């Protein structure tokens, strides 16, 4: 038999080549998948960041305004109502005509189109409210007047090939913009108001603070409710509950709840909290309740996993020394499981932060310009705000929406960092 004379090692060598090839192929599959994922992520980020960064900045015209009491219509500098109701637009229009040196009606109209008169009026109003009105009246102040969002759109894309946004202006307006630009009176800077104001129907005035605060209150309610409830439920199920048909049923249901579409939770919230209990609509309180329902399964499941991961030897050691069940749980199981529990909670909260469907059902998609000051004020949330802005036809709002996405992403990233940090901080090796 010739076959038997062939040594084992020779046979092994024969198969080696195919084996190595298979090995390489196998590794390649993995690398390709990861590369695909990375590419998608890279595309997404570059797209969002490219668009979103524009949303954070705005163009301003340096305008010198004379605070003329007669134009403003203020007779008593101490009367707040007069200050609030004063005719700021007139003042700004006057300053603008002077800046562009126009007199006839047609040109004046064209000038008015270049500036966001109302938004600039709020700036002026704020300035008066904060300062000493009687002293300021009659003086000349320099303000950064908001340009119209079309001008901002055009200016932000000046270098681009087919000059988008140019067709909105006639030659005269374009000349004015160029002159102002060359004179250095057009300033491109970060729009801080974006972070400090609520929503608005004008894109140049719209800010994200309302949505951010709304999301914050939502998450606060969600965290305060879901964390203790989730952990208590997990501890009970893991440490105390007997294993019988009932606990099995509960376990199956919790696992299923985690997979229920979130809009169902919205319906549930609508039916229970709004219709039955009569809580106010559009409030972070109700939103938090709904998101708690949605987050709980995630927290319970991850907390149970964390409790299960505590080595039984530690538990035995504590029992063996005479610790009671509660002492074992509080002194040993909980501290060791806490990093896992926190991670699960933060991941659950991050999910809740990005959730919009259930909020739709309880009316958090409404237009709410005021910044909420508590959990019972009407509010909207970041994802809802993004959706609304994107839906708006105005180009300025689209930019803001991208910027808001960036803000949301920042929140998510910082929450994840918090999760990692908490895990590192609390985790102890055993």
């Amino acid at each position: 038999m010739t076959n038997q004379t062939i040594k084992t090692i020779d046979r092994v060598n024969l198969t080696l080549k195919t084996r190595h090839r298979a090995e390489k192929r196998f590794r390649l599959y993995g690398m390709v998948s990861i590369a695909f994922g990375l590419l998608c992520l890279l595309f997404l980020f570059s797209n969002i960041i490219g668009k979103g960064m524009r949303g954070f900045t705005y163009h301003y015209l340096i305008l010198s305004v004379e605070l003329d009491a007669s134009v403003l219509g203020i007779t008593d500098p101490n009367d707040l109502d007069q200050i609030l109701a004063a005719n700021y637009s007139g003042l700004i229009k006057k300053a603008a005509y002077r800046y562009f040196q126009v007199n006839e009606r047609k040109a004046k109209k064209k000038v008015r189109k270049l500036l966001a008169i109302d938004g600039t009026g709020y700036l002026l109003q704020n300035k008066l409210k904060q300062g000493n009105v009687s002293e300021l009246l009659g003086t000349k102040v320099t303000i950064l007047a908001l340009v119209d969002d079309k001008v901002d759109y055009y200016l932000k894309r000046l270098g681009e090939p087919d000059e988008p946004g140019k067709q909105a202006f006639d030659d005269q307006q374009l000349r004015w913009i160029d002159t102002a630009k060359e004179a250095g009176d057009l300033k491109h800077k970060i729009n801080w108001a974006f972070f400090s104001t609520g929503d608005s129907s004008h894109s140049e005035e719209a800010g994200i603070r309302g949505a951010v605060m709304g999301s914050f209150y939502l998450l606060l309610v969600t965290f305060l409710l879901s964390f203790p409830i989730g952990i208590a439920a997990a501890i009970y199920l893991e440490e105390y509950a007997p294993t019988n048909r009932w606990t099995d049923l509960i376990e199956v249901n919790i696992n299923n709840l985690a997979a229920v579409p979130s809009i169902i939770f919205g319906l549930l919230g609508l039916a229970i909290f709004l219709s039955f209990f009569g809580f106010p609509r559009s409030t972070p309180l109700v939103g938090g309740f709904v998101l708690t329902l949605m987050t709980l399964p995630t927290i319970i499941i991850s907390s149970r996993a964390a409790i299960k991961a505590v080595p039984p030897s530690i538990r035995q050691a504590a029992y063996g020394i005479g610790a009671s069940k509660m002492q074992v749980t509080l002194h040993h199981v909980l501290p060791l499981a806490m990093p896992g529990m926190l991670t699960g909670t933060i991941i659950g909260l991050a999910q809740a932060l990005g959730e919009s469907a259930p909020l739709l059902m309880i009316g958090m998609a409404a237009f709410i310009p005021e910044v909420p000051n508590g959990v019972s004020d009407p509010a909207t949330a970041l994802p809802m705000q993004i959706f609304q802005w994107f839906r708006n036809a105005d180009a300025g709002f689209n930019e803001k929406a991208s910027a808001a996405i960036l803000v949301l992403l920042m929140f998510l990233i910082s929450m994840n960092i918090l999760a990692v940090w908490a895990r590192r901080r609390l985790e102890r090796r055993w």
Partner: protein
Amino acid sequence: MTEIKGDIVVDQKTTMTTNNKVVLDGDNDKTVGEPFVENAKMSMRHVNVFYGEKQAIFDVNLDIASNQVVAMIGPSGCGKSTFLRCLNRMNDTISICRVDGKLFLEEQDINDKKMDVVPLRARVGMVFQKPNPFPKSIYDNVAYGPRIHGLADRRSDLDEIVETSLQKAGLWDEVKDRLHQPGIGLSGGQQQRLCIARTIAVSPEVILMDEPCSALDPIATAKIEELIDELSQNYTIAIVTHSMQQAARVSHRTAYFHLGKLIEVNETEKVFTNPDHSLTEAYITGRFG
């Protein structure tokens, strides 16, 4: 000598004879040797343990003498660990496990459902197979028991308990300069001695050891064995071990378990030179197991 233990009359002299009441059903199941002693710290009578439907321990009767080391040996799955865990009700943590019979710690039946396991485990401490210090400092590991049982009112008392416990466990000199470093930083043998220190910090009367050296190297094992010998002057010790040599080295009496039955109990010298039961003989000479 006759004494009353529960509902059983134990006649020490006639242990080996068939008219003794403490025998197992059927002649083959009789425990041979001397399962009963006069100065018993713990007495187990008619102990049966079930895991669900499966019976793991069959009618075991055994005394553990005060200030003695009893070794329990036998092939894997013979129930020796299960039996050991009955002695401080550690089997309670397994929901499907049921223990029948009477287990006396001195005069108290510890298998009584009304018996609180917390004080029981303070009296009957346990050291486990794998060193399992808490993920805390060395000091906190030892101080944990006294703290939860409220054994020390003042910090200085606690310090003293920690020091004496570590000294008794022969670990003090090695760790006195790093009491506040994590217990997990110690070597395996040191960790196991830390666990022993943790156990004796609550001043138990009985210490149960479940294969305490199975994860240790021979030198660390020798140190633990030396420690067991010293501890036996003040404590009653029951040790389960896979190593027959270890049983031979550390114990005064040896109990041989086989398939959930207690086959033979005798003085260790007797078991290892001339056991009474052929199964014991076959096991300790390495003919099966």
